[in-house]
């Protein structure tokens, strides 16, 4: 789960990391009001859960409160990478001397958290990593020991931070580490962490991502998930415990197991089709879940055919078949359905579906080819 900049910075502030004065606004009038309160120059920043806001014109500086209102109006009517801007953050503008990149994230290969820092901050860190990897400093943290003070000092020294700021940087590093731990973050990123003209450190931007698997112990964080930024079908699928991702094609896919679901999409593509979605109904899915999955798939108007591929292990073929029949009754889909059932109780499942006017298939390749042909009409 991604957090907005303003949400991330609110968390940073709780952990003693200095952030600019500012507040979030949903209308241009509110933005003007906040700018008046702050006085002087402000930055109007679109709050959308994608990168490249600056390049898209979603971050602008206003010299007066009137200009803030005007710019907020513009930004609030923008779409950035297809996402409409619904909120702006109005922050007091900082006098920047230097920009640093600083983050804590999970290094899956090392099986440890890693601190990443660079003196070349403020820009896309992946670009820095690709073009000048020597400018990126990485220090791993032992998850059983936690962040040690010397590690923060090492980072500060290696990015040539002035010595008089090492102490403050140490506090920011331990604050970020604690925030990362307490929220089960997979990323806690400050980019840029600036040194201001009056020699203070401040987190001008913030980005946090939270481990979805850990949300059971962070109900307050789960509540601030911005579902406006999600594809509605994905939100709906999550309610039923289905793993669903909307894609651009026209062949709906319903599969059990993530690896097999990806593979089914891959084969559709291999035989010249385009998958409309990724959908894993999960292990042991009963009829209710299958019916919900079916509703979600066929509610997408671009779907021209549906491929159902179930390998019964824990999931039973007859259960799935019953779910399909319930869903067919309820949704009355007009598109052709291709079904492949293998494994536990597959025979019983196939019998149940015999009268349901479905196209059946024996192998995965056969099923994909039939679905591709059916989508073409």
């Amino acid at each position: 789960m991604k957090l907005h900049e303003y949400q991330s910075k609110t968390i940073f502030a709780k952990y003693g990391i200095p952030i600019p004065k500012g507040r979030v606004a949903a209308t241009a009038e509110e933005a003007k009001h906040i700018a008046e309160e702050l006085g002087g120059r402000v930055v109007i920043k679109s709050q959308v859960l994608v990168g490249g806001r600056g390049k898209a014109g979603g971050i602008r500086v206003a010299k007066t409160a009137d200009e803030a209102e005007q710019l907020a109006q513009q930004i609030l009517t923008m779409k950035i990478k297809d996402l409409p801007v619904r909120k702006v953050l109005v922050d007091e503008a900082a006098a920047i001397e230097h920009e640093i990149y600083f983050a804590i994230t999970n290094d899956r290969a090392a099986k440890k958290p890693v601190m990443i820092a660079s003196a070349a901050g403020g820009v896309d860190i992946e670009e820095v990593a690709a073009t000048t990897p020597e400018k990126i400093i990485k220090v791993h943290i032992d998850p059983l020991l936690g962040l040690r003070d010397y590690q923060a000092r090492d980072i500060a020294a290696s990015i040539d931070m002035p010595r008089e700021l090492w102490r403050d940087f140490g506090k920011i590093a331990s604050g970020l580490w604690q925030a990362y731990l307490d929220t089960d973050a997979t990323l806690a990123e400050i980019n840029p962490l600036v040194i201001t003209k009056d020699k203070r450190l401040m987190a001008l931007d913030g980005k946090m991502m939270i481990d979805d698997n850990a949300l059971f112990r962070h109900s307050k964080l789960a509540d601030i998930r911005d579902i406006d930024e999600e594809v509605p079908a994905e939100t709906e699928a999550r309610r039923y415990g289905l793993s669903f991702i909307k894609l651009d094609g026209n062949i709906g896919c319903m599969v059990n197991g993530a690896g097999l679901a990806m593979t089914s999409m891959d084969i559709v593509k291999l035989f010249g089709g385009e998958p409309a979605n990724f959908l894993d109904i999960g292990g042991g899915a009963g009829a209710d879940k299958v019916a919900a999955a079916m509703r979600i798939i066929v509610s997408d108007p671009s779907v021209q055919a549906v491929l159902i591929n179930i390998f019964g292990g824990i999931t039973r073929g007859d259960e799935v078949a019953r779910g399909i029949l319930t869903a067919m009754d309820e949704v009355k889909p007009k598109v052709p359905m291709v079904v492949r059932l293998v494994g536990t109780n597959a025979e019983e499942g196939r019998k149940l579906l015999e009268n349901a006017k479905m196209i059946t298939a024996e192998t995965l390749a056969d099923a994909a080819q039939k679905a591709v042909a059916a989508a073409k009409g």
Partner: protein
Amino acid sequence: MSILINKKTRLLVQGITGNEGLFHTTHMVSYGTNVVAGVTPGKGGEWVLDGKIPVFDSVKLAADATGANCTVIFVPARFAPDAMFEAADAGIPLIVCITEGVPVQDMMRVRNYLDQKKVRLIGPNCPGMLTPNESKVGIIPGNIAIPGNVGVVSRSGTLTYEVLYALKQVGMGASTCVGIGGDPVNGTNFIDVLEMFEHDPQTEKVVLIGEIGGTDEDKAAEFISAKMTKPVVSFIAGSSAPPGKRMGHAGAIIEGGAGSAADKVKALEAAGVKVAKHPEEIPSLLN
């Protein structure tokens, strides 16, 4: 021969009285797995499966009483890290965690602790292991595989079943099938299992089933080209997956342009691995 599990495996089931634990214990026992004990805190002294399997309050008590040398974990995600720590502290050398959805920060702590104790973990978020006709530890349906000379290692569950089933259709069998799981931080990687297959006399060929995300397949490719004498056939799932999206498995995500199927296929092919276009092609590539 086989790897990791065989007839001598004395299995403990953590979470044996839960729905899933009990269901799969029944299947493991009927497959012939030697399930010696179960653990559910607070239910010590009870018996399950018509008095066949004793339940203990802790792993330590169960291991001391029964000499269990392997444990399989079916407890919910919020309790799974503790179950793994407990098994390691009780001296169980091989832990298999089926549970899906364990937070990744917990897994980093678990993995680093288990490494210090030299305990092997398979999973989490995995289907477990199967040595056909000898032992089944986990949830792989027993009837889809026959004994043979093909070692199978995979990050996926049902996709692995597809491959075992496709092999069986043409009369090919498995030495051992190991599901290492779909999480970003797990206990055992491809190269650990490849090394075991390389040294296992029964295994003559290996099937490696990977997917998008991470660098485990790239490391496997390096290992195969440097150390493996046995032929390896592979399939990588997720060639049609968009970047930045988590495809069901917590670990199946292309991040910052890294971890795509195309890159993994390229690395494996450069190491002499035959990569199938789809899983049903695997048996013919093994010939």
